């Protein structure tokens, strides 16, 4: 008895549907719509609490926009490699497909690596400056970092408001979720995004390994890759929103 070895759902990818769209594709779109509300609520919480932390560190104290820009770029590029993977599959080029799939997974993992680095550097953030140099900066009208400002007031000025010129500040000033509202909302929002990326990487690698079994992923049987690509692009778009709203808006004045 000749059977198609369809390793996935019972109904192949070609059963008739009312709209012509595959069921699982529609499911993924519906799921992504729902996930929008999930991230929307987390972003809303972040925005509601923006600027309301009673103590630092604040975004401007810890964010390193150049570094985060690199990781953002990596994630964006991973979307491109995902497109290339799907396109290769559609042309029947299994080798190229596998290479681009792995690239996507690697870039996604790199992004996660950056996140881990960022999280740990935030939590072990250190503050050190000379009171004299800060005073100069204030005199010359340079922007004094918001959280550092508190230390300036506390450590560099005596009770009459006179500068203690030789004093220098050298303290742990880490940002943990428990520290303040910024820590709580930041880590939760970016943490859940990172979890989504991680799940995506696991999915991509699963498809990659499965593709070695004959007949599982082919030019005709490309739905799984299509679905994974949709999910991956969604996760990328969410990051663009987070990067803009949390990082860029958090650091530049006027927002």
């Amino acid at each position, binding site marked *: *008895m000749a*059977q*198609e*070895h*369809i*390793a*996935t*759902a*019972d*109904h192949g990818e070609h*059963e*008739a*549907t*009312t*709209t012509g*769209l595959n*069921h699982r594709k*529609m*499911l993924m779109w*519906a*799921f992504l*719509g*729902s*996930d929008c*509300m*999930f991230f*929307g*609520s*987390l972003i809303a*919480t972040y925005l*509601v*609490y923006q600027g*309301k*932390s*009673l*103590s630092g560190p604040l975004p401007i104290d810890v964010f390193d926009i150049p570094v985060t820009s690199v990781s953002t770029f990596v994630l964006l590029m991973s979307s491109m490699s995902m497109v290339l993977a799907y396109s290769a599959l559609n042309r029947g080029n299994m080798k190229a497909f596998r290479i681009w799939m792995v690239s996507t997974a690697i870039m996604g993992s790199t992004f996660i690596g950056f996140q881990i680095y960022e999280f740990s550097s935030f939590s072990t953030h250190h503050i050190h400056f000379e009171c004299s140099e800060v005073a100069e900066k204030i005199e010359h009208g340079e922007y004094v970092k918001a959280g550092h400002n508190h230390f300036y007031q506390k450590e560099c000025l005596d009770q009459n408001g006179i500068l203690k010129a030789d004093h220098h500040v050298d303290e742990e000033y880490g940002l943990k*979720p*428990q520290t*303040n*509202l910024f*820590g*709580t*909302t930041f880590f*939760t929002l970016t943490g859940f995004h990172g979890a989504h990326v991680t799940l995506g990487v696991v999915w991509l690698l*699963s498809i990659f390994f*499965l593709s070695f*079994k004959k*007949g*599982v992923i082919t030019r005709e049987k490309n739905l799984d890759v299509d679905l994974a690509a949709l999910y991956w692009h969604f996760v990328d778009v969410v990051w663009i929103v987070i990067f803009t709203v949390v990082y860029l808006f958090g650091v530049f004045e006027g927002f």
Partner: protein
Amino acid sequence: MSTFPIAIPRPVHPTGLWNWITTIDHKKIGILYGVTAFIMFISGGIEATLMRVQLAQPELDIVSAAVYNQLFTMHGTTMIFLAIMPLGAAFFNFVIPLQIGARDVAFPRLNAFSYWTFLAGAVMLKLSWIGGATDAGWFGYAPLTSIDQNPGKGIDFWIISLQVLGVASLAASFNFIVTIINMRAPGMTMMRLPLFTWMSFITAILLILAFPVITVALIELTFDRYFDFNFFNVARGGSVVLWQHLFWVFGHPEVYILILPAMGIVSEVLPVFSKKPLFGYTTVVLAGAIIAVMGWMVWSHHMFTVGLGPVANAVFTITTMLIAVPTGIKVFNWIGTIWGGSIKINTPMAFALGFIAMFLIGGISGVMHAVSASDAQQQDTYFIPAHIHYVLFGGAIMALTSGIYYWFPKFSGRMYDEKMGMAHFWLMMIGQNVTFFPMHFVGLDGMPRRIYTYAEGMGWDLWNLVATLGVFILIAGFAIFILNMVKSWKSGPEAPGDPWDGRTLEWSIPSPPPEYNFKEIPVVRSLDDWWNTKQGGNVKEVPVAGGSGDEGHNIHLPQPSYWPLVTALGLFIAAYGVVFNQLFIPWAISIIGTFIGFVGVYAWSLEPVNDPDEDSAH
């Protein structure tokens, strides 16, 4: 043959208990949901009865304050999440594929997974009575739910079981959205969909958008409790009002999730027993959609006394009052439906009519609290439970009961006892009013909600006693109902395919339907196609085979599967692991549960394909 390294064959024609455990048949899953939901309803009713007995007289000591607070919390949570929503799901499951001319839902295994996950969440919530259930109200306002205020595990069980139930609801909703859009019989355009299917579709969309909001709220609460985060920590600048906003942005669409399917059922029953089509089909569909959209703009009417300020309160007063309009439209259209018809008042019709009468009262009291100025005297008094129970008990439950009687012949293949049915109706009608109408009085006379007792001499004694007596009338009604169901399902007279001279497709097939539902997928020519066919208005065509086959052979049906249950089990274990995260090795139980869940998911996605010879209908 399979591509999965370890060939775990799918169950083949399992019987008995295994049949039910591995089923992916929407009809069986519907019955599972219905029976489970009804048991949960009874447990919620017991909780309510204990509360009412405690309040029958001032300063009684039937239950302590601590227990009473758990009772009202569990009663609310149970009724909303374990009774009304799954009863709705029972109907979605059983009825929708039959109404759209499909053989099953889009994702049969996901469907089974939804049920088992629901059961997991229900069991987890109800078991939390052991060791102290949650006692912070079904709405769990911060900071009463903080770890300082409430260190026990009751709150954690509440949080985590709600998350599990959320997964179940979301999975089911995704399934029904795809099913309704993508599996309609040829000719079944959206504007020919039966009203129940339409309302269920709108409900599912509401659900997938609203549930993530409470998911986030519960996650934030969990992080505050377990890891000392600051979401609702006033000392670090957090706002406890944020919880209320998040909760009610979910909570208000949730009440429409509760009522729209019920309204859908009424919109099916009234036409059938008036022998007239629904008056203004398009208008009723639109009204439902408008209610769903506007339902997102009214949430702060639950927060009128929280101190948002008169401007915010004024805005929400206006939006809330406006949502009365589409609701009113539906009521008028229903009356238009029966007007000029040939009305037969049997049990399902009586319950549907009772819904209109009772929901109207609930709607009017709702309009009273829609206005922030007068709500200041009504909020947090018994006036609110009065409103709630008129719309949810006299409303949703009555409509769902109507649905049970209406579709009873279809899902059981037998007729219920009509006399017992009408007795149930009258007892419910009278009991509902005797129990809940007096709550309007004591509420406006100053009795707050959520109090385990009250002092003598406040003027509340008489009506509290009356309300308690009403509960026993309701219990009598349910007893008759249960007797009727059991007796009729076992040995009631056999029911024909179309006992009611119905209008929609489910009545064009035998009772109970064969496993494959339709021998031939019907071709739909109009709204109420089955009715029109019978009236001779349609020419019935033999459909072109699209893989649907004929005469019941070679009909491609999905086979049962173990993996939905395994995945749900993994989730269940992981959930307990979150609550008991320090037991043995920290987080070990959760990790094990997650692992089992992943095994389930992988096995599910790589499951061996059906053998075409195996699954021909028998």
